[in-house]
C-alpha cells in the first residue's frame, strides 16, 4: 500500500493500465510483433534454409515438408515457408500503409468539415455519405482492373514491379477514408467549443494553427484506434483482390495471391490452400482484438 514513489496518473498511463487488463489484446500485440519480426527477417531465413523465394523447381512441385522445405513446396516448386514470409511482408505493409493513407485523407476531410462547419461541412458530409453508400467490392474490382496505359501514365511506371502495390494502396485509401472522416468531424465539433480553442482564437491564431496544433493532438487516440481496426479490413481487401488476380501481381508473393490457384490445389495439395488463409485470418483477428483493446483503454466510457 505504502509505495515510496508517487504514482503518476497521466491519461496515457491510465490508458496503458487499462490496456494491460485486456489479455486478448496483449496476446494479439505479442503475436503481431513476432509476425512482423519474422517477415522482416525473411532474407535471413532464406539464407539459413539455403533456398530462394522465387526459385522455380519444376522437378520438385508440391513436395511434402522436408528439412530443406519445412512447409513443402508450391505448384512451381518454390519454398512455401519463405514465400509465406515474403508474402507477409507485402500483406502487412500494404495493410499498414493503406490504412494510414486512408486515415490521413479522413482526418483532413473530418477536420475541415468539423472546424469550418456550415456549407463546407454539409457538402463534405453529403459526399462522405455518398461514398459510404457505394457498393465497395464491385468498385474496387473495377478500379483494380483499370488499364494504367489509358490513364496516360508513363510506361516506366506502368511496367514497374511495384505498380500493383501502389495501386492497391491508392485504391484502398480512396474508399477507406470515410470512417475516420466521420469520427474526426464529430470529435472536432465538440473540441471546437472548448476553452483552449477559444483561447487560441482569442490570441489570433490562424485556422490552420488551431486545427493542426490544438485540435488534432486531441484526436490522436481515437484515430489510432480507428487505424488499428481498419488495418485488418485492409488486409482482407488486399487478400481478396490479390486472390482474384487484381491485387499484388506474382512473382511478388502476397498471402492473397498465394491462394489464387488454391481452387485447383485443394484437390492434391490442400495444405498450400490452408497456410496463407490461416495467416490472413490470424493477422486480421489480432488487429481487431488489438483495436478493441485500445478502444477500451482510450475510451473507457464506450464499454460497459
Amino acid at each position, binding site marked *: 500500500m505504502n509505495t515510496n514513489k508517487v504514482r503518476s496518473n497521466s491519461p496515457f498511463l491510465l490508458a496503458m493500465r487499462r490496456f494491460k487488463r485486456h489479455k486478448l489484446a496483449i496476446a494479439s500485440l505479442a503475436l503481431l510483433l513476432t509476425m512482423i519480426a519474422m517477415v522482416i527477417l525473411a532474407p535471413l531465413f532464406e539464407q539459413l534454409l539455403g533456398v530462394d523465394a522465387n526459385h522455380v523447381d519444376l522437378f520438385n512441385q508440391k513436395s511434402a515438408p522436408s528439412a530443406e522445405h519445412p512447409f513443402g513446396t508450391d505448384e512451381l516448386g518454390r519454398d512455401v515457408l519463405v514465400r509465406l514470409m515474403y508474402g507477409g511482408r507485402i500483406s502487412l505493409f500494404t495493410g499498414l500503409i493503406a490504412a494510414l493513407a486512408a486515415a490521413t485523407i479522413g482526418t483532413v476531410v473530418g477536420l475541415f468539415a468539423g472546424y469550418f462547419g456550415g456549407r463546407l461541412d454539409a457538402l463534405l458530409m*453529403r459526399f462522405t*455519405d*455518398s461514398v*459510404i*453508400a*457505394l*457498393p*465497395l*467490392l*464491385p*468498385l474496387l*474490382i*473495377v*478500379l483494380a*482492373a*483499370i*488499364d494504367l496505359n*489509358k*490513364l496516360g501514365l508513363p510506361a516506366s511506371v506502368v511496367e514497374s514491379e511495384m505498380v500493383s502495390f501502389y495501386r492497391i494502396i491508392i485504391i484502398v485509401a480512396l474508399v477507406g477514408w470515410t470512417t475516420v472522416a466521420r469520427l474526426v468531424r464529430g470529435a472536432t465539433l465538440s473540441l471546437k467549443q472548448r476553452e483552449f480553442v477559444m483561447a487560441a482564437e482569442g490570441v489570433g491564431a490562424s485556422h490552420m494553427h488551431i486545427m493542426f496544433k490544438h485540435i488534432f493532438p486531441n484526436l490522436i487516440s481515437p484515430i489510432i484506434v480507428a487505424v488499428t481496426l481498419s488495418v*485488418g479490413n485492409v488486409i*482482407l481487401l488486399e*487478400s*481478396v483482390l490479390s*486472390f*482474384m488476380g487484381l491485387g499484388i501481381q506474382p512473382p511478388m508473393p502476397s498471402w492473397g495471391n498465394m*491462394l489464387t490457384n*488454391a*481452387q485447383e490445389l*485443394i*484437390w492434391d495439395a*490442400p495444405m498450400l*490452400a*490452408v497456410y*496463407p*488463409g*490461416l495467416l*490472413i*485470418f490470424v493477422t*486480421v*483477428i489480432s488487429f*481487431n*482484438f488489438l483495436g*478493441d483493446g485500445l478502444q477500451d483503454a482510450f475510451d473507457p466510457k464506450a464499454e*460497459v
Partner: protein
Amino acid sequence: MTRFLLMRGLQSLVVLAVMSFVIYGLIGLMPGDPIDLMISSDPKMTAADAARLRTLYGLDIPLYERYWNWLLSALSGDLGYSRLFGQPVLDVLFPALRNSLMLLGTAFFMAVVIAIPLGTLAAAKPRSATDYSVNLLAFAGISIPSFWLALMLIMFFSVTLGWLPAGGIAPDGSSFLENLRFIVLPAITLTIVSIGSYSRYVRSSMLEVLRQDYIRTAKAKGASGRRIVWLHGLRNAMIPVVTILALDFGFLFSGALVTETIYSWPGMGKLIFDSVMGNDFNLALVALLFATAVTLLGNLLADLCYAWLDPRIVVGGDET
C-alpha cells in the same frame, strides 16, 4: 418526415446519376476496347476498317458525348447487348438477380436468426463466459477471409467428404433437395461472415436498452429477468438493429461477389466480376449501376426503418 425522405431520395438519385457517369468513364479505362477485340477476332481487318468502325460505334467522339448518347438510349430502354452471352443485357441480368436474391435471402435469414439470440444472450450477462464466447465467435466471423472460408468448406465437404457439390447451381426444374445441395455451402459461407457483425450490433444495442428507465420500471414491477430481456429489451433493441440490417442487405448484395465467384453461383456478383474481366462493357456498366442502385436503396430503406420503427424520432425537424 416526408420532406426528409424526399431529400434523401433526391440525394440518392443525384449520387446514382454521378456514379453512372463515373462508372461509364471507368469502364472505358478497362484494358482493351471493343474495336481491338474485333481486330483480334478478324485478321483480315485493316487499319482503315478499324478507323471506320470507330466512327460507326461513335468511339471517336468525346467521353461526355458518348455518355450522353448512352444515357439517352438507356433511358429509352435500350441497354445494348451482352458480348459474353450474346443476349440483351436485361435478359442476362434478371436470372442473375433471381439467383442472387435466392442465395442472399437464405444467408441473410440464417444470419439474423442465429445472431439475434447470440447477441441477446451475450448482452443479458455482460462479462460472463457466454459473453466472451460470443465475442470470440463474432471477432472470428468478422476476421475470416470469405474466399478462404469458402475454399476450406469446399475442401472439407466436397473434396474430403464428397457430400456436397463444389459449386454451380442445380439445373432448372430440379427437386427442392437438389437445389438445397447446391445452395448449402455458399449460404453457410455468407452466413458465417455476417453473423459476427450482426451479433455485435444486437449485443451493443441490447446493452444500451437494458440501461433505460423503463427496464428499471419493469424490474421494479417484478418482471422476471428473462421476460425483461427477451420481451421488453429485445423489442426496443431491434430498432437500431433493423436499421443496420437494412443497410447491410444492400452491401451483402455486392459483398457476395467473391462467394458467388468461388462457388460459380450465377448471381449478380459473379456477373459483375465476369463482365468486368471479360470486357463485356454493356453488361458490366448496367450490372455495376444496378448494384449501386440496390446499395443506395438499402441506405434509403435504413433511414425509413429508423424513422418508422421508433416513434420517438422526429427526423428532419427544424435543423435539416
